[in-house]
């Protein structure tokens, strides 16, 4: 559990500064440990609203952990994550200190964030429409007709309107992933986390999903954080690329520079191995 960052009297003040500066997401000295194994090592980085950020780096460098921390699927060990200027996993405690967030607070902050998973994770007990409308109805409180209308529009966008009553098991991997993207978008997130969304797909299905994500990136103002091994895609959609190694960002910049003329030897090695 986090102990150290809980005593940070200036956080509130600083948080306001960050919003003013346009940082939608801020990682401040974030540490994530599993036992003795340090996955994220005093990580600092910020993402501005509307940006499309790609996280690249070797396996085990902590990229996915960042997304999982943002989605509150993992608990932070030390440090502070701010989303829209509010601490994600901490809430105000006595005397201006911070304490670990409770469920209610976390749900409030988490509203802004959606995630698409490597393995799609559609609910097998629901058909396509129910997968997309469940949370808008039960969490956002939309009435069913409105949620279904929104689901229909999203299914048009992902090109699966005719599968509206199908079960996830009747869909190909690529179709399941497109439904999962529609499901995440149905919650109108400000931030969309994409965790290796094409890694589990057969090669011929990858292009369809990437085209869809490209369209979302170019037609919406959703901030995207994307962990991917598809370097072409990363170059294509991102404004900013973060190169990770050993739980830290070792290099960051626009894709042209990172892919074209990386400064760090480690980045060059990594890119020459994957490209």
């Amino acid at each position: 559990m986090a102990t150290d960052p809980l005593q940070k009297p200036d956080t509130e003040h600083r948080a306001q500064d960050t919003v003013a500066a346009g940082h939608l997401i801020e990682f401040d000295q974030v540490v994530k440990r599993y036992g003795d194994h340090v996955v994220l090592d005093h990580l600092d980085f910020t993402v501005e609203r509307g940006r499309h950020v790609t996280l690249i780096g070797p396996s085990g460098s902590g990229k996915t952990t960042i997304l999982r921390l943002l989605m509150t699927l993992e608990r932070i060990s030390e440090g502070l994550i701010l989303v829209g200027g509010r601490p994600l996993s901490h809430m105000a405690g006595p005397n201006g200190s911070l304490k670990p967030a409770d469920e209610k607070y976390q749900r409030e902050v988490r509203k802004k964030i959606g995630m698409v998973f490597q393995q799609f994770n559609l609910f097998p007990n629901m058909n396509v429409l129910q997968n997309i409308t469940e949370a808008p109805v039960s969490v956002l409180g939309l009435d069913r007709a409105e949620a279904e209308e929104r689901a229909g529009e999203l299914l048009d966008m992902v090109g699966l309107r005719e599968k509206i009553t199908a079960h996830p098991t009747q869909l190909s991997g690529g179709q399941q992933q497109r439904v999962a993207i529609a499901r995440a978008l149905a919650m109108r997130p400000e931030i969309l986390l994409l965790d290796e969304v094409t890694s589990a797909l057969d090669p011929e299905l990858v292009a369809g999903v990437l085209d869809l994500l490209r369209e979302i990136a170019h037609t919406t103002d959703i901030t995207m954080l994307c962990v991917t091994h598809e370097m072409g895609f990363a170059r294509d959609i991102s404004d900013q690329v973060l190169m990770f190694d050993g739980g830290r960002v070792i290099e960051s910049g626009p894709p042209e520079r990172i892919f074209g003329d990386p400064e760090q030897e480690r980045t060059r090695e990594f890119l020459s191995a994957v490209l």
Partner: protein
Amino acid sequence: MGDFYSYFFGHLPDVWSGLAVTLEATVLGSAVALTLSFVFGFMANSRPVLVRGASRVIVEFFRGTSLYVQLFWLFYAFPLLFGYQLSPLFCGVLAFGMNYGAYGSEVVRGALNAVPRAQWEAAVALNMTPFQRMRRVILPQAWVQMIPPFTNLLIQLVKCTPLLWLIQAADLTTVVQQMRDRTGETTWAYLTLLVLYFVLAYALTLLMNALERHAAVRLGRRPAARSLLRSRSAEGARRSETAGGAR
């Protein structure tokens, strides 16, 4: 043979009333067992150590003491301690419910744990409350896994109901025993009981198969129609193994 069956068919109302007691004990006992399965199963999966510990102790106690002794205790010892005589059927329902509820709670716990963590994560990512996650995502998927082992327990419960004879409830076994005493036809009396319990157990199996099939279809699985007629024990055991192995 002739003697027994002319007596048997001459006293069908007795048979029906015995069957009614057996069915009553089965239905009420399994209703209590099902309820306790969920209560103790959820407790076993909850976070507070005390709640988990309490569930563990209760479950181990009822699994570890004989059903036979529990029945005797409720019927003969309870009145001595508390001065109140429980009815035989009530004792039966309570003992069956506690005993099979204890086994059933392990089924619930295991099935909840067998739902992939990724499903929980997807529900968190959609910002569902813990209750919504359980009610809408985890439980409907776990339920399908629970039905085959629940069927096994239900069949075992039916086959335990002749114990009611020991505490003087007029169940099916008691009635047929009395007919055996009257006619002296041991072979035919017990053969009849064997057949009757088999028919009862198989009818319940068919019912549970239909329930399982219904639940599986809701998960988008289409089991072969043949599976409706299958007897459960072996299948159930194999299935729960596979489910465990896939974790």
